């Protein structure tokens, strides 16, 4: 415990600390970091009061699960939803993040539930849980990277891991900044980010789009900006072939798309990215979560840019 406390003070070596602290999860619930409880938090437009440091957390958000474990709150987590597949030590259950069942959640006697704002009827679910006197944090998908950092901090405050949360933020921030600094800011490299094989994409107004634009890439989906208010337009095959992107990022690689499958699509063999094999297969779930593995997202893009340049 003393060793851990000393390490907590040594915030200058965040990567090392992150690795070390993960191996001591058993101590994490026992000592206080930051403000005393009860804490009042604002999350996803909802004010939550958490009476004491939670010991039975249920995470119904794969992103929140990743954050909880990176902030050493893993030992306080009793259950995570069926899609929370990372880290593998998370206590995965059949609980659904998309259509949560209040009674099934309450049956596990949690003292804190982290709910995704995108869940079906998240507002009614959250109200029902409050009736049962269960604290709820509502996790909303951020539109900018700063929103992700403030969610790290909120989860840290809620779980009594404020200093771990601050370390996580500085670790992720420093890693991303160094990736950005190392990448060549070549504004002329164009790319297509594929959400699914019906050519839904993400414009620069989205969280995903911000990641690319911060690295200086040019998004071919931006021309279709007006088509969808949420920033996820469906592009036409013709436009895509004409736009001729230099890199293609497949966030649907986990569903079987790869260089070979895209090259057989009509007209795609002529696209620069396909001809030069600049087709990036993202590891599963990297692009759809705003947790600590954001670093991997930036790194994959940066590696692909180095290949083009």
């Amino acid at each position, binding site marked *: 415990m003393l060793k851990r406390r000393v390490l907590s003070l040594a915030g200058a070596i965040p990567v090392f600390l992150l690795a070390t602290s993960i191996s001591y999860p058993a101590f994490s619930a026992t000592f206080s970091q930051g403000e005393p409880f009860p804490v009042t938090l604002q999350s996803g*437009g909802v004010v939550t009061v958490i009476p004491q440091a939670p010991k039975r957390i249920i995470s119904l958000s794969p992103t929140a699960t990743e954050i909880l474990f990176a902030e050493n709150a893993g030992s306080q987590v009793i259950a995570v939803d*069926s899609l929370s597949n990372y880290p593998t030590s998370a206590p995965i*259950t*059949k*609980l*659904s993040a*998309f*259509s*949560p*069942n*209040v*009674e*099934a*959640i*309450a*049956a596990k006697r949690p003292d804190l539930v982290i709910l995704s704002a*995108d869940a*079906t*009827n998240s*507002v*009614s*679910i959250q*109200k*029902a849980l409050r*009736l*049962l*006197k269960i604290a709820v944090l509502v996790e909303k998908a951020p539109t900018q990277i700063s929103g992700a950092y403030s969610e790290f901090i909120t989860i840290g405050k809620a779980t009594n891991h404020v200093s771990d949360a601050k370390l996580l933020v500085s670790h992720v921030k420093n890693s991303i900044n160094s990736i950005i600094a190392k990448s060549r800011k070549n504004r002329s490299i164009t790319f297509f980010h594929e959400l699914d094989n019906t050519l*839904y994409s993400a414009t620069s107004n989205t969280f995903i789009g911000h990641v690319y634009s911060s690295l200086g890439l040019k998004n071919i989906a931006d021309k279709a900006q007006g*088509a*969808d*208010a*949420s920033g*996820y*337009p*469906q592009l036409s095959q013709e436009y895509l072939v004409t736009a001729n992107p230099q890199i293609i990022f497949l966030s649907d690689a986990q569903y079987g798309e790869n260089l070979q499958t895209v090259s057989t699509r009509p007209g795609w063999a002529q696209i620069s990215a396909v001809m030069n094999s600049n087709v990036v297969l993202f590891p599963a779930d990297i692009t759809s979560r705003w947790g600590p593995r954001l670093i991997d997202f930036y790194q994959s893009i940066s590696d692909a840019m180095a290949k083009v340049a």
Partner: protein
Amino acid sequence: MPTRKDPSAPQMGPMWNWRITAISAVVLFAVAVLGVSLGPIHLNFLKVIKTLFGFPHGLQGQERVLLLDLRLPRVLLAALVGAALSTSGAVYQTVFRNPLADPYLLGAASGAGLGATLAITSSGGNVYGLLPIFSFVGGVLAVLTTFFISGRFFAEPNSLLLSGIAVGSFGTAIQTYLQQRHSSALRPVYSWILGELTIANWQVVRWSCLYIVSAILILITVSKQLDGLLLSDEESFSLGINPNKLRIIAVAAATLATATAVAASGLIGFVGIVVPHLVRGITHRVTNRSLATMAFAGAAFLVLADLGARTLLSPAELPIGVITAFVGAPFFLFVLRKKRVGS
């Protein structure tokens, strides 16, 4: 399915039998008690009964809240919605002299769907409070449009039916366009279309109870004359019934009930077809005097379906529309087939 039968024909036996209505009320009561007793969390049955009827030594603390504030409103809402959809379905089938008519026929479903989509897409914040109002207004407006377009009003039920289909397609087209422009709305709209009772709370139960119960009472009041609509208009006149006026009252009340049900729970399909035919099939009676039975039976059907929605996929929720359609679609085909054989 005989559509024109002399109601005084001797082979039909007595017009209605209060015992059947009483039995259906008892079934509903039993199913409702079952509905509040069962769920992912096990509650002591005896304590549930004690709590429900106000006896001492009932449930305490979290379990009490679970029963009285989560399960009970949900079961009541399921019962109200089931009653609304099945009585409206029965009335629509009479008014249109069409055994396959359902409460969504005149555009109520797509109008409400458009309203709900507008509520979900119009702002990024908390619009779920607006959703019931938007879908209610959407449903009523669509039915009014259908009336207006069909022009000759009720002189010819089929022209009303056709304009209902046109208005419905038009509403669905706009809804799909809106969804395409707001991809973030896709999932909430989709789950709303499948129908859900997860939003049930006492406030929703109160307002839907007010509208649905008054609509059903109006329909029961005119139910005796409704049987006259099964005859030709000339014959109805000779019985002292004004068929056009009666059709307007019946469709207006049925629309009020349907729009409220849709606003409270989304689009729950097939209840309006399955339950009326089931009740007619079991009781061998075509008459609309059975409307109270229809209401009890529809309520019991939906309470059971919701019990399935809460428990079958537990710990996840299954949209209730999946269950009603799963039971309803084969039944629908059965009715179609029987009708073809009959004619």
